[in-house]
C-alpha cells in the first residue's frame, strides 16, 4: 500500500485528490459527503460578497453520444452569506480534521477588503487559501477573477496583500485566458504565493441551439461567455502545468486542475509537476463516488511499479518537456500494421492518403486478402494512422537512421545561424 499523502506547500491531505472550488463544494453538506466518500481535500466554493445567479447556468459539450466531454458555466461565486459558509467550514473541519479545507477567495482589488476577508475566514480554521484570479465570466466584468489574473502586476499586488495577513499557505489559482501562463505564475511568486493552481476555466461559448438560434446556456433568450472545463480541456491544463513546472522563476508547488477524471489523469499531472490535483467536472457528471477508483487505481499503479509514495512521481516527466528546437531531428519512428489484428476498415489508408503523407498502400496479399501496408521508406512517423486505428493494431517502431542526434538548434549553430 503506497503512501498517498501529499503536502502542498504545507497543506497536508491523506491523498492527492481535492475537490476544486465549484458547485460540488458549495455547502457543508456536500463537502461532508465528499469527505465521507474519501476525498482528500476540498477547495470551498469561492467566498466573497454574495452574488445573485441566473438560470440557466451550465452547458454541456457532447461528442456523438459521449456526454459532456466538456462543459461551461456562467455561475458566479457563492450566493450564500459568508457567516453560513464559515460556520459550515468549521463544522466540516471538526468532523474531518485530517482533510484539507482550503478557502477560495475573491474580492475587489483593495487591500482593506482582502485583509478583512482573509482574517474572517482564517478565524474559523482553514488549512489554506486559494485566490480566485481566474473565473472568466461575470465577476471579471466587475474587476475580479480573471480581470485580476490577466495582469501579472495585479496578481503580485493582490497576493502580497493576502500574504501580509494570512497565517496559512496561500495558493494563487491562475487563469488560462492569457498568452503565457508563466507571467502570471511569476506574478504570484513575486507576491509571495506558496503555491499556484491551474487552470481555471477557459473563455467559451458551448453552442447555439439549431432550432431557436439561442446560444447555450440561455438566460431569457440570451447568453454570455462562460468558463469551459471537463475532459476536453485536459491537454491545455497539462501543458500549462508543465510550462510552470519547468520555469525556474516559478519554482513553487503546483496544484493541477483541468479535465481530471481518473487516477490516470492525476498521474499525468503529477508526472508533469503537480503535487496534487483538483477535480470538479467529473464529480458534476458522476458524483463524489469516483474518488474511490482514483485512490484505488493510483495505489495499485504505484504498488505495481514499486513506488512507495505518491510524492515520488511528482515532476518525474518535467525534464522530458523542452522546446521544439531541442528535439532530435535524427530520431525516426515508422508505422507498422499488425496484419493479424487488422480488421480492414481502411481508415489508416484514407487518413494517410488525404491528410498525411500518402505512405499506406492497399495491396492484395499472396493469400488474396485485401491488406493495408505501410511504405516505411515514405512514412514520416506522424502517428496519425496509429491514433485512428479502431483496434490499435498499428504500432510506431523506432528505426535506426544511423545518423547522429542533432537538434534544430545544433543544426543552426553548425551553420553559423542564430535560432532566434
Amino acid at each position, binding site marked *: 500500500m503506497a503512501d498517498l499523502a501529499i503536502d502542498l506547500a504545507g497543506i497536508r491531505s491523506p491523498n492527492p485528490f481535492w475537490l476544486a472550488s465549484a458547485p460540488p463544494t458549495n455547502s457543508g453538506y456536500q463537502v461532508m459527503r465528499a469527505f465521507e466518500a474519501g476525498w482528500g481535500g476540498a477547495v470551498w466554493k469561492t467566498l466573497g460578497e454574495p452574488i445573485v445567479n441566473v438560470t440557466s447556468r451550465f452547458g454541456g459539450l457532447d461528442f456523438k453520444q459521449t456526454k459532456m466531454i466538456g462543459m461551461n458555466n456562467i455561475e458566479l461565486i457563492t450566493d450564500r452569506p459568508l457567516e453560513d459558509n464559515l460556520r459550515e467550514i468549521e463544522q466540516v473541519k471538526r468532523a474531518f480534521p485530517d482533510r484539507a479545507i482550503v478557502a477560495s477567495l475573491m474580492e475587489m482589488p483593495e487591500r482593506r477588503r482582502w485583509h478583512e476577508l482573509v482574517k474572517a475566514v482564517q478565524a474559523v480554521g482553514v488549512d489554506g487559501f486559494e485566490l480566485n484570479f481566474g473565473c472568466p465570466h461575470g465577476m471579471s466584468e466587475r474587476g475580479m477573477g480573471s480581470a485580476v489574473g490577466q495582469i501579472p502586476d495585479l496578481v503580485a499586488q493582490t497576493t502580497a496583500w493576502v500574504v501580509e495577513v494570512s497565517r496559512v499557505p496561500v495558493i494563487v489559482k491562475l487563469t488560462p485566458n492569457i498568452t503565457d501562463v508563466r507571467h502570471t505564475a511569476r506574478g504570484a511568486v513575486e507576491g509571495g504565493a506558496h503555491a499556484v493552481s491551474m487552470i481555471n476555466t477557459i473563455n467559451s461559448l458551448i453552442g447555439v441551439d439549431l432550432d431557436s438560434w439561442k446560444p447555450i446556456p440561455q438566460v431569457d433568450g440570451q447568453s454570455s461567455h462562460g468558463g469551459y472545463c471537463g475532459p476536453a480541456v485536459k491537454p491545455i491544463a497539462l501543458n500549462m502545468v508543465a510550462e510552470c513546472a519547468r520555469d525556474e522563476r516559478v519554482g513553487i508547488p503546483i496544484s493541477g486542475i483541468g479535465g481530471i477524471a481518473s487516477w490516470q489523469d492525476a498521474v499525468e499531472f503529477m508526472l508533469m509537476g503537480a503535487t496534487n490535483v483538483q477535480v470538479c467536472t467529473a464529480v458534476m457528471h458522476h458524483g463524489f463516488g469516483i474518488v474511490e477508483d482514483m485512490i484505488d487505481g493510483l495505489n495499485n499503479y504505484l504498488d505495481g511499479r514499486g513506488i512507495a509514495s505518491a510524492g515520488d512521481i511528482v515532476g518525474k516527466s518535467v525534464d522530458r518537456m523542452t522546446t521544439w528546437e531541442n528535439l532530435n531531428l535524427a530520431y525516426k519512428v515508422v508505422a507498422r500494421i499488425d496484419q493479424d489484428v487488422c480488421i480492414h476498415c481502411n481508415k489508416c*489508408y*484514407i487518413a494517410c492518403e488525404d491528410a498525411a503523407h500518402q505512405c499506406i498502400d*492497399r495491396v492484395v496479399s499472396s493469400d488474396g486478402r485485401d491488406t493495408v501496408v505501410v511504405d516505411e521508406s515514405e512514412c514520416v512517423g506522424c502517428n496519425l494512422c496509429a491514433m485512428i486505428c479502431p483496434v490499435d493494431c498499428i504500432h510506431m517502431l523506432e528505426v535506426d537512421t544511423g545518423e547522429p542526434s542533432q537538434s534544430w538548434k545544433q543544426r543552426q549553430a553548425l551553420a553559423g545561424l542564430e535560432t532566434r
Partner: protein
Amino acid sequence: MDLERAPRETSLGPSIHAELSELDVLAEANRCLNCYDAPCTRACPTHIDVASFIQKIGTGNLKGSARVIMQANPMGASCARVCPTEDLCEGACVYADDDRPIRIGDLQRYATDWLVKSGVDLFQPGRATGKNIAIVGSGPAGLSATRELRRLGHAVTIFDANPALGGLNTYGIVPFRLPMDVALWEAQQVLKLGVDVHTGVSVGDDVAPSELIARFDAVILACGMGSVPPLGIPGEDLDGVWDALEFIERAKCGDGIRAPGPSVAVIGAGNTAIDALTCAKRLGAPRVTMYYRRGESDMTAYPFEYDFAKHEGVEFRWYCTPIRMLGEGPMVRAVEFVRTAPGRPSGTLARPLPAAIPGSEFVVEAQTVIRATGQSRLSDLIGGFGLAQSHGIVAVDETLRTSHPKVFAAGDCIFAKGSREAMVVEAAEQGKTAAASAHRMLCQAPAAITQSSVAQ
C-alpha cells in the same frame, strides 16, 4: 445495446422487426467506423453507400440518409426488412468477425421509416426524352427500372396482372416481415414520378407481346415467375391444398382464408416455405410441420429464417417426400409420405436428387397442405416475346439485354437457380441495370443520372 423494443402489429401479429428508439439508433450509428471503401457497400448488390447513410443518421440528416439509400436502391425500404443482411452488408462488416456487426438493416429501416413518415419526395422525373418504354411486371425489378427510367426522362408504361403494384413485395412476403403498406408506399414513390399504369392486365393474355414490342421503344421484362406447380401426385386437387404464394397472398390480404388446422403440412424448405409455415402458425394452426426430401443442411432458407420458424414453434421432418394426398369428401385430411435417402453425387446435377426408400411410407394427418417447392417459369410469356431462354430462364447478356434488341429483362425471370436464393435487392439492382442499358440504347449516351435530376 438494446434495440429490442415492442414491434409494431401487422395483420398477422407482431412484426419480426423491433421498433427503434432514436437513442438506440444513434448509439448504433455512432458505433459505425465509417470505413473507407467499406466492405458493407461492396457487399450490397445495389452498392448503397452504407457508411454515408449511417453517418448522416448520426448527424440528424435523415433526409440525406434516406436519399443515399433510395438513390442506390429504389426498394430501400423493403430491403431494410427482407435483405439477408448477414449474407450481405452485415456479414461483410469489419465487426462481423466479432459477432457484433453494425445493425445496418435496422438503421436502413430507421432512415426509410423516417422517409415514409415525412412525406418528402426525393426524386423528380428527368426532362422528357420522347421515348416510351413498357415494363412488364411491377415487382422490385420492374419498379426499380421504372424509377430509373423516369429520372432519365423516358415515358414509362407498367403492365401488371395484379390489381396492386409491388409484385411479391406486396403479395408474396408475409406481413410480419414486410407489411403491405411499405411495399405499396415504395410503388407510390415511383408512380409519383409520372407513370402510365395498367394493373389487372396480363401481358400474353390481355396484351400481345408483339404489340408491346411494336408500340414501345423498348420493353423491360420483369415478370418474375409463375405459380408453384403441382407436385404431380394423387389427391392434389382436394380442397385445402395450396400453392404457398397463393396461401401467403390470401393471408396477407386478409382474404377469407379458413383456419388452417389443426395440422398443417408444408412441402419444401426455402424461404417461401418458411413464410408459409410461420403464416399458418400465426393463423392459429397448433401443429405446423415442414417436410423436405433432403436434409437440414440442404435447406435453401436462410439460417435466420430457419431460426425464426423454430422460434415460432414450427416442426421439421427431413428426408421424406409426399406421394399421395388423402381426402375426406372434398377436403384433404392426410398426406402419405415416403422416406428418402440422400442422392448420390452426379456430375450433371448441382444437387443430387434423393431417392425414395421402398416400404418406408407413412401417413400424417393434415387439414391444410401447402406446396412451397419452387415457382414455375413463365416459358409461354417468354416465348411470346420470342426470346431465347433456357427452361424458362430468359437469356440475357451482361447488360441484361435479351436476344431481342429492344427487350431487356430483370428480376426473377432471369434468376438462374443456384446456391443462393433470389433476392429483392438483386432484382432492384437488375432493374437499374436494365434501365441503364435501355437508356444507353435509346440515347446512345452513358446512363449517368445527373445531380440536377435529384431533388435537393
